[in-house]
């Protein structure tokens, strides 16, 4: 099955910098590589958006490439509102004006990285509270299939050797579950640019010797995430899924610092996941289930 790729210059309900195929190639050397490999784009327009279209080759869902949006999530919400975002369809932003992480934390977004928003299927054979972990898991598996071994920092940051390589945020709005994912491909924030209290240092794929261009990597990731979702996630029993998620969780069995709302910061042993995806930790000899906290390794 072939899927279309769009370059958006206009989208109803979302402001963005108009983008054309040539401009896309000029955004970053890696993007240039991507554009060269795609078939020629043809202009296209409808009531919802305006831009260019081409065929992206085998895959599972359309990709909308845009630039200069507030956040790829905003564009995805706009597409959803217009009924143009089926499940596994995604928005891939070249750069973002106000990329966001958890709790609207700033996500600096220069061109050369992946800032994507993917419409994810609503929870089916697992509780809704697991969605975040499941999204992290399918991408972790997708990276693994691309030869990049990553672990999830609970609930779903993706770590490469204990450094944050990608961040994931789910937004559930108007009946659409969107997975926002920022992947450090060409760039990553230096240690002194991270927010205060950041749990782990950041890293980027290029700096670690992985040679990927943003679109090509994104296409592969979505394809593999889809594969993993269909062939693994949907087939697992609930217990099976939990133990599968645990297998990809960083630091299980280790003592880590737990930063939580009413805990302050204290060391605890990470035991695994509870049935709803919350974290099981051993604090002062007692197993506790934490639904919100952040973790950092103790070196």
């Amino acid at each position, binding site marked *: 099955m072939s899927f279309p790729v769009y370059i958006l210059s206009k989208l109803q309900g979302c402001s963005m910098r108009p983008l054309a195929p040539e401009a896309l190639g000029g955004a970053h050397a890696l993007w240039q590589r991507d554009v060269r490999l795609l078939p020629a784009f043809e202009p296209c327009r409808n009531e919802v958006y305006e831009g260019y279209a081409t065929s992206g080759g085998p895959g599972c869902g359309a990709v909308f490439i845009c630039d200069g949006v507030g956040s790829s999530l905003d564009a995805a919400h706009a597409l959803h509102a217009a009924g143009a975002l089926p499940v596994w369809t995604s928005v891939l932003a070249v750069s973002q004006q106000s990329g966001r992480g958890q*709790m609207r934390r700033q996500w600096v977004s220069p061109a050369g990285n992946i800032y994507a928003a993917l419409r994810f299927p609503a929870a089916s054979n697992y509780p809704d509270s697991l969605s975040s972990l499941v999204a992290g898991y399918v991408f972790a598996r997708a990276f693994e299939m691309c030869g990049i071994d990553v672990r999830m920092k609970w609930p779903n940051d993706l770590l490469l050797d204990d450094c944050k390589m990608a961040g994931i945020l*789910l*937004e559930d709005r108007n009946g659409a*579950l969107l997975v926002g994912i920022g992947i450090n491909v060409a760039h990553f924030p230096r240690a002194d640019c991270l927010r205060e209290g950041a749990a782990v240092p950041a890293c980027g794929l290029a700096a670690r010797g992985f040679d990927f261009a943003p679109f090509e990597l994104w296409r592969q990731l979505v394809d593999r995430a889809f594969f993993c979702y269909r062939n693994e996630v949907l087939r697992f029993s609930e217990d099976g899924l939990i133990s599968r998620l645990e297998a990809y969780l960083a630091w299980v069995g280790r*003592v880590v610092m737990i930063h939580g709302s009413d805990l302050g910061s204290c060391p605890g042993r990470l035991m695994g996941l509870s049935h709803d995806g*919350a974290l099981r930790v051993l604090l*002062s000899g*007692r197993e506790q289930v934490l639904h919100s906290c952040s973790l950092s390794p*103790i070196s």
Partner: protein
Amino acid sequence: MAIKTFNQVLEEVKGKPILVANRGIPARRICRSIRERFDAVAVMTATDIDKTSPAASAAQELLLLGSDPRAYLDIDRIIRLAKQRGIIAIHPGWGFSSEDPRFPSRCAEAGLLYIGSTAEAMNLLGNKVQVRRLAKQLGIPVVPGSEGAVDVPTGRKIAEEIGFPVMLKAEGGGGGRGIFLIKSQDELEDAFVKASTMAQASFGNPRLYVEKYLPSVRHIEIQVIADMHGNVFAFDERDCTVQRNHQKLIEITPSPWKGITPELRARLKDYSRQLVQEVGYYSLCTVEFLVTDDGTPYLIEVNTRLQVEHGITECRYGIDLVEEQIAVAFGAQLRLKEDDMVPTQHAIQVRINCESPQNDFAPNAGLVTRYVSPGGPGIRLDSNLSAGYEFPSNYDSAGSLLIAYGKGWEKALATLNRALREYVVGGIKTTIPFFKQIVKHPKFLDADFDTNFIARTPELMCYTDLEPEAERLARLVAEISAKGYNPHVKLDEYRTRETPRMPDFRPVLPEITSRVRKTASPYPVGDRAALLDMVRDSGYVHFTDTTARDITQSNSGNRFRLAEDALIGPYLDNCNFFSLENGGGAHFHVAMLANMTYPFTEAAHWNQFAPKTAKQILIRSTNILGYKPQPRNLMRLTGEMICDHYQIIRCFDFLNHVDNMRPFAEVALNRSGVVFEPAISLSWARGFDVPHYLQVTEAILRMVADVAGVSSAKASSMIILGLKDMAGVCPPRFMTELVTALRKAWPQLVLHYHRHFTDGLFVPAVGAAAKAGAHIVDTAIGASVRWYGQGEVLSTAAYIEDELGLKTNLNKEMIRSCNFVLKQIMPYYDRYTAPYFQGIDYDVVEHAMPGGATSSSQEGAMKQGYIHLLPYMLKFLAGTRKIVRYHDVTPGSQITWNTAFLAVTSAYKRGGEQEVRYLLEVLDNVTRHSEADLSSEMKEARLALYQDSNDAFRDLLMGKYGKLPLGFPADWVYQSAFGNEWQRAVNCRTETSPLEFVEDMDLAAEERGFVDIIRRKPTDEEFVMYLNHPGDAVATIQLRQQFGDPNNLPLHVWFEGIEPGRELNFTDSHGKPHQMTILSISLPDESGMSVVRYVLDSEIMSVDIQVAEPHADDVQGLEKADPANAYHVAAPSNGDLWVMYVHPGDYVKKGEELFNISIMKQEKAVLAPVDGMVRRVLRTADYKENKQMVPVKGGELIVELGPVPTLCPNEKCRHPITIEGVGFCPYCGDKLDCACKA
């Protein structure tokens, strides 16, 4: 201030309130002095968390500071509250604001007396830069370095002057924090920036100074007290050299180091007095020096406060420094005079911190479950600990200060050692065991240490911190009792607390007379040749008993504990069995899985309680006691240990690939007291006929001959040949043929027949083999016999004797006694652990699923919801046996089963039972017809048969386990299993033993990794356990460490625990008897914990046991949204509210976002369900502003809307009019009328 006497101060202070602005140990310590002589009112500050701390008991009054744990730092508020209470003086203690010069200033402003010095004097001495300058003026040596904070160029210049290595120190640092070591000029620049940033972050002051790094130094300090009238007294030195990361751990006075000469001591005291006098400092202070190996002192800093280690000086001199400090603060003249203050004691203090030394000294807050303080002569204890105290995580980890003192260093040290052994703090980890290591370390005893002693002596971390075994076992009993089941048996929740109980296990043990005990075994011991000769020539049929292994091993519950082995072992030992099979196979691994038993220790016990009869073990060729091929060096290590404990070693390979047995043959044949028994795995199927097995036997004898360096004929007389029918499928007639042929071919070869009962033909088959000349047969004791194992000994013997006319030499009376004991034991195991299926299945001759696997596979199918597919799976097995031909013996049987399971369930998922039936039809066709007769459709369809197989099956096809006994299967099998890769798979097949590909293990590295985990040197046995089954070995070792030897608990207690009120008597491993009674088991609290209170040997204890999952759905006390009310907006699920967008009175449109909930990084936008006006906002949050999230429960009402009241009639405006009674629209100014009601 006028000169006062001490007595005048006593008068002045009596009955007046003095505040200690501190908590914990210092607060308690100071309150004691306030009350002792002064008879003043001791008032202590306390935050909510500290109100009930043990330290608070020392105060007569508490000055409450509220909920904020940091309130001790708010000087102004404390002073304000103190004034309100009428406090006359404040003691700052140590830590918190004790070194903040603003404290004395603010006290002075408020008219309060500060028990300390003046701000000015504190500034002059307390600031490291200032005091350096002062010291230089006075000619006191200081560590070479910069004068004050420097920038990078200056730092570089100074570093060059004084030479590398140097240290960068934060001006605002202290207590060892903010120090960076720089080894060369290159490192300086980078380190400077980093250090400065960290200093800013940590101390709010980025300034750094440079200091020479002194490699080996001791930390020596002089305590000084001075009054306002110019009198100064300097005490003998304290040696605080034992530090970790610059934090003092142990303090000693006087220093035991020989480098502290009387001259040096006098010099240091003189320097200290000069400094204090120079600035007019009064109160207590400590002057700290570093002293190098050659006795050169350098001043480092002055602490202008009471110090943690002041107690040892008090013990040395028999005084109360706090009392003196208070008196001096009130203007008293110093009472201490050099002439009459003769120090008489040596004293040493250890800081008992609630930290886990082995876990990098991680702080360890939590409930103190047990507390026994040391006492007796020469002990002083200042503590903030007691039983039942929930040690808080908000403050530092100081639990107590333990001081030992006495005449001389050796006496003080011995007293300390004794006190540490007396000291019990349960429930949390402390530094006590770590100090026990230090006080016995030779370097410490010799005072041969510097400030790097801890860092450079890693062996201090190697210890096991264990409570007495009885306490640990009692905790295990409490856990089993509270849960109702034993979680360590790993059989899920097999019972609850309400399940009816078995009667107490009180076995009746028939006597074994001493005459019987003293009678020697009929079998020669320790001499292989003699033993085999005897078996060959005796004219008896011999028996091996498998009760303790094959019958009682198949899951983690029915495997006997050593405790029960020890009951039946002595009987079995006197039954005249050829051997007792008591080890190997799953028995080895399952020991660790559930019984917390060390398998070789168990074997050693067997050799003690059943010494006469040979012990037999079963090993799995290349895997030995594991599940995958082992490297040769591990094989040898395990092999030697096996030969130390067992005399008959049966070794089988599920493919009969003889090369796989060779490394073990090399070990076993080398031991003259050990009999090697290679075993042939038997199947009953096409191709596996008598000639085939004769070939296998020949190959075995060839291998043995080669290893032993003898002829094949000679080899046949040196070993026993095992015939292993694990599935229990070979019919009697086949056994007659096979044994007859073997006996004929190798008359000297002793044959040992092992078979399972599965097909129901055990007795005739064993009879047939015996009749045909098999020398030894395997049976078990009646009460233990289940159909998945061996048959029963007495009935088999009766058949052999009465029906076949052969002879046996069994002690049948002893077998009956043993059976009687087993009849009492088995019900306990059966009750909770009986496998699903225990009956006969004659169809095994088709599907060949081995004994134990029949029931466990059925259990697996049931638990996964596929029981309806079991008949299909067995049919699939039967078909597959005809395609991929090998022996249905562990681990091959597991591969067979998994392949069938996956094929059938996958087909079922694809197209239901119809698809499964189709698959089996294909299989049937493929096995019934020759290749030439198969249609092309069938050839295509058969590729579906193994498309769902797993890696193990594919590895089997590749030859990775060894050579397939009848050769590789047809190519289409590879096409099916490997898909497009099949050609490559076929090309990569091998018939070489997997041993050729397994590289030796780096045993030293493995051992280092293991030591890292268990924090001590393992025993040889533990190491072998670890190398074979790492995860389970570690769990067993840790469980054993946690609970002791559970074999000391009676059988019913092991499975069921005890009821409250019932008495349990048990004996620990040292033979000490104990008594335990559970008083109560509370209902679980919301975190799922039950508190078990119990009496152990007259001491009441309690332990929290997690008996249920914490339930987070407690919505009690919260207002719930009415789902039927469209204006009620609820939290969609449990989560954290992090942003609320609306306020009461806001007008919202349908679909507008009201608030957002974060659930593990899934942000759920909650939208207005209708147009409306916000009436109430029950919860609010603004994470971006205040970094606070508010936990909410699913269904909880968060926002309540109301109907839109009125809209402005102006079409261009249409704003809602939310203010009642206005006549004009507040937005556009249009006049309103009644008609515009919405």
